[in-house]
């Protein structure tokens, strides 16, 4: 065990995809809740493709950004959590 790479490095892609997916799901709800509370802009900001899709003032734009930020946050949480488990498990083996 001790000669192997850490759990974090061996599960890099699982952390990246799983973490982004998990965080984006939570970010979607957070984004939708905040935008419903704040209200919406004008017709021009409806957020279709090629329009102001990522304008944070629009529903879609704000929620997309919230999803990305939450996704990154969950990746960080997994890196920290699995890093700590890796230390504990290495100590247990040693």
């Amino acid at each position, binding site marked *: 065990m001790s000669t*192997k790479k850490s759990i974090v490095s061996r599960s890099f892609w699982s952390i990246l995809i799983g973490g982004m997916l998990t965080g984006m*799901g939570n970010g979607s709800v957070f984004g939708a809740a905040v935008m419903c509370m704040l209200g919406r802009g004008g017709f021009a900001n409806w957020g279709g493709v090629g329009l102001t899709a990522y304008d944070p003032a629009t529903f879609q734009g704000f929620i997309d950004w919230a999803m990305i930020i939450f996704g990154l946050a969950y990746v960080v949480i997994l890196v920290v959590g699995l890093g700590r488990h890796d230390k504990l498990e290495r100590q247990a083996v040693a």
Partner: protein
Amino acid sequence: MLKYLFAKNEDIPAGSAAVFWGFSAIVWFVIGTGLGSFNAAKLAFPDFVTGNEFFAFGHMRQVHVHAVIFGWISMAFGMAMMYITPALGNTKLWSEKLGLWNALMWNIGLSLGLVLLWAGVSSGREYSDFPWPIDLYIVVFMAVPLCINVWMTVINRRTQGIYTTNWFFASAVFMVSIVFLTGNLPEFFHLTGLTEAYLTWWFAHNVLGLWITPVAAAIAYYTIPKVTGNPLYSHRIGHLHFWSVVVFYSTPAAHHLMSAPLPEWLKSFASVEGVLILVPAIAFVSNILLTMSGKWYMFVENLEVRFTITGVLMAIPLNMQGGFQQTRAINWYIHGTGWIVAHAHLALLGFSTFLEAAAVYLGLQMILKRKLYSLTLGNMHFWMLLIGFTTYWVSMTIAGLIQGAGKIYEVPYIDVVIAEHPYMIARWLGGTMVFVGNVLWLYNMWMTARQGTVVPEGRMPHELAYER
């Protein structure tokens, strides 16, 4: 398998029924996701296969939905029940013969139902699309025999208590029969209007809430302790999970109808119950993740654990979405959009499928006493499922937000269709990746049965090194 249908029960090898259920489930998964990929292609490329009503989206959509719910998911559940229930009761399955006949009748009934749906014979109600004779068939020949086998196995157990998994199994097989009989009352008695709408969504919600969610979770309660060798973190939290599912998950059907003229108190009640779904969700996720303590290296090294933990991670956003997307404010924006399609797939293709796939991988290896034929193919299956599903989910969520904006701002419909087009192509690519991954899985499990390394008596498959 078929040669045992007319054999004496005591002459049928233990696990025969589970193998029949397991391979049936994988075949239905290939068929169901193949249909999904085909349907997604029709949304991405509107000129793809036109001119034949049997290949029209309106005919094929229900076939896809029912093939994955009652073919893949439910038969994987049946497989899990056939081998996990007796294992946790330290006994044999009550009747292998009933299990084999049950699987056969399940395949026949489902095939018949899907052919009828394909031909356009439908009740016209989402999720309870099957015409009423098929609904009755499902109860009498599919759900009740499964219920009898599971209950009799639990009753004849040789352990003192009943482990959490078997609590869930025994209650879910009972509840799904009630759900079918009650949820289809509008068709049995020609109920119309709000009564029909409410019962339709009571059925749809509870197929998810009282069948798919609890049984999938029950599987994880078995898989993680069994493979890691760790005892379940807390049996008591498992009980909290069980009872809070039964109480909070059985009642919020009206949250599917927040804009309908149902009584306001009913909608408020459903919305509050919907948020309370977070109680069983948090209990389940924390219980499983804490059970992993000291064995997180298996998240990297073990395929079944990786499938299960990924599915459990997906339960977090699933329940956050499920808990809050039905509150009035958020529901106003996302109802009737692709967001809901993404959420439904997060439940069925994400959370639930990953847990069931782990159970089928583990169960077939244990029953056949054969090591998985190819770890490479297993890993490819995992990644094609995860990347394909993630592509699907992200594209459909964003497409849903565009649709929501189009709906609220009263944007011309065709503009919304054009805006969604790139996401429809991404959806098709993701879905097709899942389908191809499942074809590889079917091959891998078939080869496991034929050429997998023999696992010695008393050993777990993951204790042996892979040879390929």
